């Protein structure tokens, strides 16, 4: 339902210092897919997010979201289908209290009062915030604030939820909880999710990983396929999860590790299988 065909974008087009942020991007994301986008700073990820939210428009090529072309005349049609959550929740939380902030978007759509309260209630519930709807946002932890921002995005009932590095300021346990909540929403509501991140281990939690470099897509596939390209990823300033890298090194030393290793649990299982039995001499 997101379709990019030959999409390019340049800042300061036509000038000597033009910056080609995206170069002929072709990308198709099906309805309801759960996708992570990774790439170093300056790889074009943020430009992609701005194009998908009709903040910028392609210099070349076309983008369709749910069949609606992304261009200036139809920007509200696009924005009704796409919600975005930014890195710093303070950039998008506008009201003092939790429930009021979640209501802000639907209120601006001019929806009837009953529908607004229904949307606020279900969004708060989905993010586990029902009990704190009346709290002041300034009293919340960063993880809670990020949940309020997602609840606000959800109350717009988008077809696609775009998460632009929302976990980069959170400790890993809080980030992981946030991703699993979004995963549940994705399964239950069929809402597509596009998550931009710098964390390789976070990207392994998605169905599909799209890797960007220099405004192009350089790898695209399931996490296990993508993170097999250890050298390639390092050459473009990225990394692979430590367990995947260690598996790669151990295989190079002749340790017969079978299957895909994306996290430490996979690594333990593969090592255990290679050793022939779950218990080893050391642990007896």
């Amino acid at each position: 339902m997101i379709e990019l065909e030959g999409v390019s974008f340049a800042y300061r087009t036509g000038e000597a210092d033009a910056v080609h942020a995206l170069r002929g991007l072709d990308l198709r994301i099906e309805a309801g897919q759960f996708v992570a986008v990774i790439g170093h700073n300056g790889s074009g990820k943020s430009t992609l997010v701005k194009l998908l939210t009709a903040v910028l428009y392609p210099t070349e090529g076309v983008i369709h979201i749910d069949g609606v072309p992304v261009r200036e005349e139809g920007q509200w049609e696009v924005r009704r289908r796409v919600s975005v959550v930014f890195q710093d929740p303070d950039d998008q939380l506008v009201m003092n209290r939790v429930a009021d902030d979640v209501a802000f978007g639907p209120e601006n759509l001019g929806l009837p009062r009953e529908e607004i309260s229904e949307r606020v209630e279900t969004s708060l519930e989905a993010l586990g915030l029902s009990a704190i709807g009346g709290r002041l946002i300034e009293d919340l932890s960063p993880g809670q604030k990020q949940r309020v921002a997602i609840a606000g995005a959800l109350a717009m009932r988008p077809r696609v939820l775009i998460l632009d590095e929302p976990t980069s300021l959170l400790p890993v346990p809080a980030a992981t909880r946030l991703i699993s909540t979004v995963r549940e929403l994705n399964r239950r509501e069929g809402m597509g999710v596009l998550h931009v991140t710098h964390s390789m281990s976070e990207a392994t939690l998605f169905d599909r990983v799209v890797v960007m470099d220099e405004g192009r897509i350089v790898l695209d596939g399931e996490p296990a396929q993508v993170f097999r390209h250890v050298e390639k990823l390092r050459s473009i300033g990225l990394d692979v999860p430590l367990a995947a890298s260690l598996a790669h090194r151990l295989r190079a030393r002749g340790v017969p590790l079978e299957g895909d290793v994306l996290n430490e649990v996979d690594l333990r299982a593969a090592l255990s299988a290679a050793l022939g039995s779950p218990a080893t001499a050391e642990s007896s």
Partner: protein
Amino acid sequence: MDQIDHAAAPPIIELRNFRYTYLEGTPRASEAIRDVSFSIRRGERVGIVGPTQSGKSTVVDSFAHLLRLKAGQVFHDGEDVATPGYDRGALRRRVGIVFQQPDSQLVEDVVGADVAFGPTAAGLSAEETRRRVEESLDALGLPYPEYRLRYIHALSGGQRRRVAIAGVLAMHTPVLVLDEPMAGLDPRGRRELMELLIRLQKDRDLTLIVCSASLSDASLLCDRFIVLDAGRVVVDGPVREVLREPGRLAELDITLPEPVLCARELGKLFSDLPTAVLTEDELEAEVLKRLGLV
């Protein structure tokens, strides 16, 4: 500078039974620090780590007396900074803080002018200021001729953070405090900043304090961890000792270093595998040893 016997000199920073409540005496009072005591010696590399709202930022703010401090709690070079008449300006010329959001401390439009702001305000000559701006930008990998006239708003997040660090570095403070220095940087940016900070700390014999909810980068930058939770110190010790018992840390909402997480899991297979491993190389060597491959 004179040779100082670091062990004999008073700690450069000391907190004694530090307690702090924001908006004390009002209905919105919130107790941030319940009881925190530690001392930091000159030249140490210390990570103050803990989950969000554990009190890290309050502790950092106390170092430069940015709070309404009471007497008898915060000491710099053995002196109580809350003593009436204590020279706070001088304190802030000795304790440099780089806040989490670089934009909160970048005050000018252009890189060179921003880095010059502190030295100029401190009354240094134009010549000395220019020298320090050049030296600081060069040290941060932002070559002076190339960057001095660049607009800050056109720089990337990682570059803006470097400008903020250069601004603090130009003050030649013996203490450098960084609040979440790696947040928002990509893997390459983290690696570069880390190498740079390690070199700066060595070259200038800085007292380096890194404040973070992630033990990951802090474990490579620091030799000692002070772990805070709910306004108290829960562990204080050398990095490897703290990581030897990761179970306690795993209960807190903090990021453990990836090698430690991996070693914990592999510990179910190799019961004698140490968890205090800082790098992938160390972990690989330990695993290979147990596989009989070295």
